[in-house]
């Protein structure tokens, strides 16, 4: 299980930096580093097992039958990547502490960084394919946040967006691809899929799966022709570039190719696609890097080139090439992260990253200069540094590769790429650190604090150590990782400095000579390049996305034209059409269930409904009339419930009706009082016909069901209500016990709705809204704002209503009633106080504010549910028992009562909050009400607000 924690800790730890940033930047960085260190320690606790050949696993099953589980495994490859992500993460955190300026919000930065770290570790350790995809998407999202960290900068935002579009788009393809792979292999677990390579390669799904997976991997790892996003992502702060764009995220694509190597590699299609893409990327990246003037841009294209190198090696499909790829991943991570950090230091100290304005820094910042030169030597592939070793292996592999019968293609192009790589490394080193000291740096440079150069130094140690003693330092790690990539026996190889006179050595020598020549002739080469036609990938990207956006907008604009009437009309008309088609294309017979006899009262009520509905239809322009008629309809509905054995529903309906009507009256107070007729007669007839057909359909469907008998699951509830739930009111027992989950969620939704109402109305007392409210003055006002009769009646009724509420609540478990109805009754009694005596008077006397009541209600219901855990039962399991008290007698006490209390409190809070807020807004346009006590009798001719006003 500690393996799961390795992923979980960075995610949970992401909460810490924003919280502790108040204690200072050092504390914040230390806390972030601590989180990473903890994850790393947990990971390394598995190291002995992994190196002894075991594969630690951990899993939490969710829906195993659908392949949904949170399962992770750490084989050599996953372990190596996870360790690399965490170690370099740690160094980057230290570096970032000193890199970020005081103005940069550090808490946010470290939170993003840890989220990214968690996602990245998740990608490399996932066993379940779907889990891997989820983490993959998360790396795209978190890298978007990190690239766009300086959100005020346009280039940061654009770079972030481009990275998200490209990697996110590739992610979509990857989802499809991996699902196909899982389908072909018949398993959702990578550890099983890896063992079924034969099956996948033989499947007809292999080619589409391969293409989709490659699309995902190539976009993520910036392979040609998707390489253009990476340089733009360099708008990110340098720690991000060092972490994401050299060591981790861009390696995710390479990781995926390595991960799926035993499954997908080894076929002709794999070789024909992956190898040349890698080769082309390596060559193009290196060529562009040479002519970059921005240090980070140069390093970015160099990274593109090296990613191409790894891709090409994996694409060759031979075990030996896979070993070389793994070795190069290790080497590149060390020297490239060191170089990015050095470039950041230069930028930080001199104020510029433009290679044309730099030079001679070696004398001014010797530590940084030395470290950067060592790392650059490795990048160039100079012997005694680790970059040389893996590059030699790459050249050796390329030398033996024939593509489509062309023996020379790979060796020649790989050598040319190596020439460029030597040249740009030299340009980086010479242009920045060597040469004469200049006088015109924007800032006066000197070596940075130790916190900034120490991470670079730590990274340079393996650069040299591996370079000198490869087998001793990196041998076991390479063997472990490569074995996991190959998924079979390792080829016979030897990591060493000297292999004799090999083709690779000769190619290296050519590269050094060519690179040196290119540096010397840089000016001429640059002139030549300027004359060449340029294909700017970014312009192409913008044309493509721009066109897509235009077309999407056209499509959306045609459908989504901002007219609610149209959306509703189309929806209803479609429903009617589909329903009508279903009806006419099927056979049907009349139902056989005997009908109940029609009674005279029923016909009367029906007639009332027809009148009220018809009235609403005809007079909906007069809003007050329509509202009153709607209230009548509500009463009819309550009567329907009452007639057909649903006393609980009738009670609820009638109380909700009261509250709804009051609510709408309050709103109507501020809205226009009439609706103008703006539509033509034809449109109204059309709407009427559509509505009528829909009504006919609904009525017909209801009639068809009512005249047929059917089996119901309700017998269970009826039988278990008393013995299982301890109550005789089955409806209430279902609500608070059998289906308590539903009810619990429902009161949460209600609470959210009420809080949303509060959030919507609270700011309505400012800005344009308040001017509009002010403009509504003067209005018709009743001379008597608080009618004495109403005030007295509501106050007398209050205790009575509360008692009724309590009674309804208490009996609810056994007889019609319960938390919902009781809550409504109490809420109405309270709201009446607001109506009768004014908002100010009532709000002053409400001891408990409604927000707390909602919170308390949800909390009580939730805690009641959680209490079941104490007894080892599932959430919301209820219990009941019988108590015997003297005088009171024997009565029943059910835990569901406490749950119902939560419901009660929530309902009261929601109703009072919504209506009180509305009346608070409405009160703004009433200048009169708050004059003195509502019970004061205004004498004829007395100035309003005169005698009764207090304080």
């Amino acid at each position: 299980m500690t393996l799961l924690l390795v992923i979980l800790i960075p995610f949970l730890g992401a909460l810490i930096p924003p919280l502790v940033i108040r204690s200072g930047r050092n504390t914040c960085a230390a806390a972030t580093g601590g989180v990473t260190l903890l994850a790393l320690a947990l990971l390394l606790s598995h190291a002995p097992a992994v190196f002894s050949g075991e594969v630690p696993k951990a899993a939490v099953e969710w829906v195993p039958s659908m392949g949904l589980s949170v399962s992770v495994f750490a084989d050599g490859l996953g372990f190596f990547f996870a360790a690399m992500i965490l170690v370099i993460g740690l160094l980057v955190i230290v570096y970032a502490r000193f890199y970020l300026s005081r103005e940069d919000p550090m808490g946010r930065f470290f939170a993003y960084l840890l989220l990214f770290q968690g996602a990245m570790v998740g990608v490399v350790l996932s066993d379940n394919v779907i889990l891997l995809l989820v983490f993959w998407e998360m790396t795209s999202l978190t890298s978007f946040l990190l690239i766009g960290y300086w959100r005020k900068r346009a280039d940061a935002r654009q770079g972030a967006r481009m990275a998200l579009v490209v990697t996110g788009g590739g992610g979509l393809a990857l989802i499809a691809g991996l699902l196909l792979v899982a389908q072909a292999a018949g398993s959702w677990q990578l550890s099983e899929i890896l063992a079924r390579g034969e099956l996948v390669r033989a499947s007809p799904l292999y080619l589409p799966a391969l293409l989709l997976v490659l699309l995902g991997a190539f976009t993520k790892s910036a392979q040609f022709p998707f390489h253009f996003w990476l340089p733009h992502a360099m708008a990110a702060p340098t720690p991000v570039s060092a972490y994401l764009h050299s060591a981790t995220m861009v390696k995710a694509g390479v990781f995926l190719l390595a991960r799926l190597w035993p499954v997908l590699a080894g076929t002709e299609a794999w070789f024909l696609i992956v190898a040349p893409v890698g080769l082309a990327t390596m060559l193009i990246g290196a060529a562009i890097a040479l002519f970059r003037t921005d240090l980070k841009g140069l390093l970015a294209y160099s990274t593109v080139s090296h990613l191409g190198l790894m891709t090409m090696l994996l694409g060759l499909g031979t075990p030996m090439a896979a070993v070389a790829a793994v070795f190069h991943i290790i080497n590149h991570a060390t020297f490239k992260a060191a170089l990015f950090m050095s470039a950041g230091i230069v930028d930080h100290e001199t104020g510029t990253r433009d290679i044309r304005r730099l030079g001679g820094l070696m004398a001014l910042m010797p530590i940084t200069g030395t470290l950067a030169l060592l790392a650059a030597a490795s990048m160039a592939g100079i012997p005694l540094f680790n970059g040389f070793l893996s590059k030699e292996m790459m050249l050796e592999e390329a030398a033996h590769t024939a593509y489509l019968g062309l023996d020379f293609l790979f060796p020649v192009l790989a050598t040319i790429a190596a020439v460029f790589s030597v040249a740009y490394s030299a340009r980086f080193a010479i242009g920045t650190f060597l040469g004469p000291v200049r006088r015109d740096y924007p800032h006066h440079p000197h070596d940075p604090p130790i916190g900034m150069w120490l991470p670079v130094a730590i990274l340079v140690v393996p650069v040299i150590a591996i370079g000198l003693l490869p087998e001793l330092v990196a041998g076991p790690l390479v063997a472990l990782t490569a074995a996991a990539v190959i998924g079979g026996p390792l080829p016979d190889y030897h990591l060493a400095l000297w292999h004799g006179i090999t083709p690779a050595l000769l190619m290296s020598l050519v590269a050094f000579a060519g690179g040196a020549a290119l540096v010397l002739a840089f000016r001429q080469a640059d002139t030549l390049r300027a004359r060449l036609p340029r294909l700017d990938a970014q312009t192409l990207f913008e044309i493509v996305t721009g066109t897509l956006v235009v077309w999407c907008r056209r499509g959306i604009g045609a459908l989504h034209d901002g007219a609610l009437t149209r959306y509703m009309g189309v929806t209803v008309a479609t429903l009617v059409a589909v329903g009508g088609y279903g009806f006419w294309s099927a056979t049907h017979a009349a139902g056989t269930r005997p009908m109940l006899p029609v009674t005279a009262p029923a016909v009367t009520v029906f007639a009332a409904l027809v009148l009220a509905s018809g009235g609403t239809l005809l007079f909906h322009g007069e809003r007050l009339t329509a509202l009153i008629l709607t209230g009548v309809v509500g009463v009819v509905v309550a009567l329907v419930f009452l007639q057909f054995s649903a006393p609980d529903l009738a009670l609820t309906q009638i109380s909700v009706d009261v509250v709804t009507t009051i609510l709408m009256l309050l709103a109507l107070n501020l809205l226009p009082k009439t609706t103008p007729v703006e539509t033509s007669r034809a449109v109204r007839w059309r709407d009427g016909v559509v509505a009528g057909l829909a009504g006919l359909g609904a009525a017909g469907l209801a009639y068809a069901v009512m005249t047929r008998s059917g089996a119901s699951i309700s017998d269970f509830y009826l039988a278990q209500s008393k013995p299982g739930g301890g109550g005789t009111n089955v409806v209430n027992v279902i609500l608070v016990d059998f289906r308590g989950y539903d009810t619990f969620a429902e009161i949460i939704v209600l609470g959210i709705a009420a809080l949303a109402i509060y959030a919507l109305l609270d700011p309505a007392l400012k800005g344009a809204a308040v001017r509009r409210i002010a403009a509504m003055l003067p209005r018709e006002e009743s001379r008597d704002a608080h009618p004495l009769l109403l005030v007295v009646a509501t106050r007398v009724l209050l205790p009575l209503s509360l008692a009724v509420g309590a009674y309804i609540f208490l009996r609810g478990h056994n007889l019609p009633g319960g938390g919902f109805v009781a809550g409504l009754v109490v809420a109405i009694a309270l709201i009446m106080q607001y109506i009768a005596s004014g908002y100010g008077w009532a709000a002053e006397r409400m001891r408990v504010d409604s927000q707390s009541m909602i919170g308390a209600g949800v909390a009580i219901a939730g805690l009641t549910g959680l209490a079941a855990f104490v007894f080892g039962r599932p959430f919301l399991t209820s219990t009941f028992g019988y108590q015997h008290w003297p005088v009171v007698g024997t009565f029943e006490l059910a835990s569901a009562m406490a749950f119902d209390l939560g419901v009660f409190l929530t309902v009261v809070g929601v109703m009072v909050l919504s209506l009180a807020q509305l009346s608070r807004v409405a009160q703004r346009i009433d200048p009169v009400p708050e004059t003195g006590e509502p019970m004061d009798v205004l004498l004829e001719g007395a100035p309003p607000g005169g005698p009764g006003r207090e304080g």
Partner: protein
Amino acid sequence: MELLVAGVIGILTTVGIYLVLRAHTFPVILGLTFLSYAVNVFLFAMGRLVIDRPPVISPDAPAYTDPLPQALVLTAIVISFGMTALIVVLALRGYLETGSDRTTLDAARRTEDGDGA
């Protein structure tokens, strides 16, 4: 009686949909109220119509009506209040901010929106 209840559902649906198709917020809100009524009665009717058999366990009761649709409708009634209240407030806020209670963007606003400015 079934026919009458079906009639109730039909009338409520018709009025509800007609009002929802109006171009101002207040009729639309009333229409939604009607539709909630219609849906609640419809759901309730799925338990079939039974007279004088409330689902309250008692030794004297010969039979009970189906309690499940009632439980569902009870929560639906309360939730539709929450929804109505939210929509009322949205409509009110919209009116107070813009001075219009129409449910359609006028032509000028629409093109402005379409340009994504």
